[in-house]
């Protein structure tokens, strides 16, 4: 294995020869080198080709109070291009990138901080048509991607949506204007759920006349029948839908396509039809006894609870099978409709439960009993044919090592006595009636084949979006599909290619944050606590659990937003905190609507060019320049202030072979 380094001369005459030869070899080598072209630089007349240096003095690209932060605002077809462009330039804020509908949460924070809640509302509404609704029920992927997770806690983006809505509501009548119609084509949308209404909103913005058919008497789709009122007060939902109507939406309630009006007729009358009916049917496991009295699906249960406020479980014991968000909703509704004892049984263990952790936490607060790692085995039926209990089997593991659903069961059985069993294990669409009269066909499993990128169906004129396509999911995902479907319809009606340039847009990968250290972090750096109704009070009726933010709280929270990737310094002081040499000094004033950076000093005589500050900068306002020649006559000149740093781009330009590369030695705007 080892190479020997000793390398001795041979002995005797050969050694003497080798010794003399070594001298001659040395002379040959230096002689040959002398004849070679010179490798070093002829100073200073030759053009010096230097490798790019980025470790020059720091500079700022913009400063709050001097530079505006651009909000991401564009019409429906252009918005995607805007987001993709920012993504390519690595300037997409994490919250926007992680939101399925790319809602500009940064712009919202900025406008709220500037004291413009109505503008913030309208900005959010461009991508999320129900800021007030989603401000209560969204599962907020934006907050999990928030860069603030690194430092302390994420911005409360969802409560800020809600706050913006509540502020907007006061001035809605002045600000609402109907969209002008400048296209002749008419579009029918079946279903008034989030995805259908999103498509309707986008198409109305584009100048189409849109008619929405809703089979129920009240609009909202799953938002109405599926989301319990304690999470989403009905007046909020209907107020926001009412706003759409004021903007020109033709909403036909109580008209069921396939029953009251046939698809065939729609296709005749309208230029395009969008199917956004969502999922209506709950799956029930075909266990022994599943047809007994007292076994229900989650959707009918929720529907009953939401429409009538009574699910027929008053004084009964309820067992919910399933661990998702719907199951939790069912459980909490059961409590509110008078169930004496509500249990939640799911296959998954505590940590694996698919519902959002805050949901189960609130449910547990209210008295729901969670029973994890139990699989349903048999419904125990009493003599009179009603449910008596449920036999559950111990579940060892739910997923195999590749992450696929493959439950393994143990040998232990548990009998749970209960009066009502609600299955919340999945939903399916009911489409047969809807598509009758069109050229569409369903698959064996009752699904409609739809292109997942552009949301076209087998028939050119018909489009589909929402949970019909994606399966059970969250409202914001449905909204995102609505935007895409609207664009497809627009392209189709304008005779453009529906597919050209359309891709499944890359969802940027954001890191999974480990919880940041919160010791000693307090005051303005802490996330605002969203007030909640007390558990013992809230279980009694359908009053909202989560209460709104006050104006000051909302302002404070909006101020916490770091305006990521905006390339404008917001004076967050993270650079100063991380500087190993105390070279950076930042001060700002923080009054509502008055947030400004008043001081930004960099002492270059201390700077060690480690780059930690630029790495920490959430807005990318702080960068290194290619200006590395830093010779000053006076030490005072080594202190760069805000103005100097905004100016210091004119340093020596990197001239390496890849000087055109992005973000390297970049010195000009």
């Amino acid at each position, binding site marked *: 294995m080892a190479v020997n380094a000793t390398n001795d001369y041979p002995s005797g005459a050969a050694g003497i020869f080798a010794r003399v030869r070594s001298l001659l070899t040395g*002379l040959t*080598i*230096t*002689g040959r*080198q*002398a004849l070679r072209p*010179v*490798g070093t630089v002829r100073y200073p007349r030759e053009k010096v080709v230097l490798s790019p240096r980025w470790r020059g003095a720091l500079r700022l690209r913009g400063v709050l109070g001097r530079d505006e932060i651009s909000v991401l605002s564009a019409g429906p077809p252009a918005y995607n291009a805007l987001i993709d462009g920012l993504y390519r330039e690595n300037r997409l804020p994490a919250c926007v990138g992680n939101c399925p509908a790319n809602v500009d949460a940064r712009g919202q924070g900025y406008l709220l901080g500037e004291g413009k809640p109505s503008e913030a509302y309208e900005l959010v509404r461009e991508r999320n048509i129900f800021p007030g609704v989603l401000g209560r029920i969204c599962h907020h992927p934006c907050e999990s991607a928030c860069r603030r997770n690194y430092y302390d806690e994420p911005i409360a983006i969802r409560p800020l949506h809600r706050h913006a809505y509540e502020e907007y509501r006061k001035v809605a009548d002045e600000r609402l204007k109907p969209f002008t119609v400048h296209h002749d084509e008419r579009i029918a949308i079946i279903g008034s759920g989030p995805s259908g209404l999103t498509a309707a909103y986008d198409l109305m913005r584009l100048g189409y006349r849109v008619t929405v058919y809703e089979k129920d008497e009240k609009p909202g789709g799953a938002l109405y029948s599926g989301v319990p009122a304690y999470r989403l007060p009905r007046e909020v939902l209907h107020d926001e839908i009412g706003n759409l109507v004021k903007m020109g939406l033709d909403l036909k309630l109580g008209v069921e396509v396939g029953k009251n009006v046939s698809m065939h007729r729609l296709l005749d009358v309208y230029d395009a039809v969008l199917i956004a009916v969502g999922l209506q049917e709950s799956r029930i496991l075909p266990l022994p006894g599943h047809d007994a009295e007292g076994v229900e699906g989650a959707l009918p249960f929720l529907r009953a609870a939401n429409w009538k406020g009574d699910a027929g479980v008053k004084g009964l014991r309820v067992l919910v099978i399933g661990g998702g968000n719907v199951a939790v909703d069912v459980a909490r509704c059961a409590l509110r409709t008078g169930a004496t004892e509500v249990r939640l049984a799911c296959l998954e263990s505590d940590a694996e439960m698919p519902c959002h952790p805050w949901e189960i936490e609130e449910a547990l607060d209210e008295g729901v009993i969670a029973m994890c790692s139990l699989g349903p085995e048999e419904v125990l039926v009493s003599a009179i044919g009603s449910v008596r209990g449920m036999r559950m089997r111990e579940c060892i593991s739910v997923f195999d090592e590749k992450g696929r659903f493959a439950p393994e069961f143990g040998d232990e059985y548990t009998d749970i006595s209960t009066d009502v069993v609600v299955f919340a294990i999945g939903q399916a669409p009911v489409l047969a009636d809807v598509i009758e009269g069109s050229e569409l066909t369903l698959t064996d499993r009752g699904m409609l084949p739809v292109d997942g990128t552009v949301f076209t169906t087998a028939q050119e004129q018909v489009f589909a979006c929402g949970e019909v396509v994606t399966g059970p999911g969250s409202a914001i995902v449905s909204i995102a599909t609505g935007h895409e479907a609207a664009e497809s319809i627009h392209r189709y009606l304008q005779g453009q290619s529906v597919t050209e340039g359309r891709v499944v847009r890359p969802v940027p990968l954001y890191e999974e944050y480990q919880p940041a250290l919160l010791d000693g972090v307090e005051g303005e750096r802490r996330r605002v606590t969203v007030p909640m109704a007390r558990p013992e009070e809230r279980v009694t009726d359908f009053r909202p659990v989560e209460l709104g933010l006050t104006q000051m709280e909302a302002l404070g929270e909006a101020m916490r937003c770091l305006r990521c990737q905006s390339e404008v310094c917001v004076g967050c002081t993270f650079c100063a905190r991380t500087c190993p040499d105390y070279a950076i000094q930042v001060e700002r004033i923080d009054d509502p609507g008055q947030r400004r950076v008043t001081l930004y000093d960099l002492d270059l005589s201390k700077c060690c060019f480690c780059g930690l500050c630029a790495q920490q900068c959430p807005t990318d306002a702080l960068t290194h320049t290619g200006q590395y020649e830093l010779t000053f006559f006076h030490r005072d000149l080594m202190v760069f202030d805000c103005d100097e740093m905004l100016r210091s781009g004119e340093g020596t330009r990197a001239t390496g072979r890849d000087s055109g590369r992005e973000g390297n030695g970049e010195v000009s705007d």
Partner: protein
Amino acid sequence: MSGLIWGAIYGLAAGMVISLAAFIGVWGERKIAGRIQLRYGPQELGPFGLLQTGADTLKLLLKEDITPAAVDVRIFRVAPLIVFAPAAMSLAVIPYAYGFAPIDTGVGVLFFVAVPAISVVGVLLAGWSSRNTYATLGGLRAAAQMISYELPRTLSVLPVVLLAGSMRPLDIMDAWQWWWIPLTFIGFIVYFIASLAEINRVPFDLPEAEAELVAGPFADYSGIRWAIFAMAEYGGLVAASLFGAAVFFGGYLGVPGALGVIVFVLKALVIALLMLWVSWTFPRMRPDQLMATAWKVLTPMALIQLVLVGAVISWL
């Protein structure tokens, strides 16, 4: 009296020749060293940086002449001159052209070999008077080294003297034959190495060994005094290469008249170049190795050469 005037004139001339030689020599050395080390060397002042040495000389002249407080002032000041004078003197006996050597003496070879040895006194004094350990060590090393290499150097020239039958340089030139070159080649090698040692160049620059003794005896000198040491070194280099070119390679012979001088200088240049080349190629020796080389390698080699030439002469 006239001797004194001649002496003065000669001294002036020698001083100028050495200055000029140092002037060009320093430039040439820096250029050559630069090329060997993949650099350009001086390039800014004048064409090819020729005036760089001038600028440096000016700088050295204008620099403060620092005399450290603790030194023995008189000896400290006089030492550079003691080193410089023999180097200049040794130029006097070299046969430059047909029938011309500034001082035509019958013991020219002996003079040339013996006089530079005086400079050892200067180096020793410089080292001792500087009153620091490095300088002292350097001075002592210089003394040991120069004395040791005097013997092989002298012995290496003897074969030519033997062949020519005279110690007068002009006589040697008259008697010089082309076949002497192969015959005295070993002698030349010994002469070459010993001369390197004599003028303190790598691999024999022990007295001023930068890495160990930080310039040895010259550590405390600055400005013009240091420049005199440097000039002495270049004077030694010039003298050694000129003399070597004369006695081992026939100096000006081969080309008639004044053109002979050019040939002579060219030959000397080649030897000087070789010296620079060697000194920029090899590492420095250790004091004990230095002594061993002198006594165990060079002296026997010179003796072998002497015997060889003696045998050839007796055979002739």
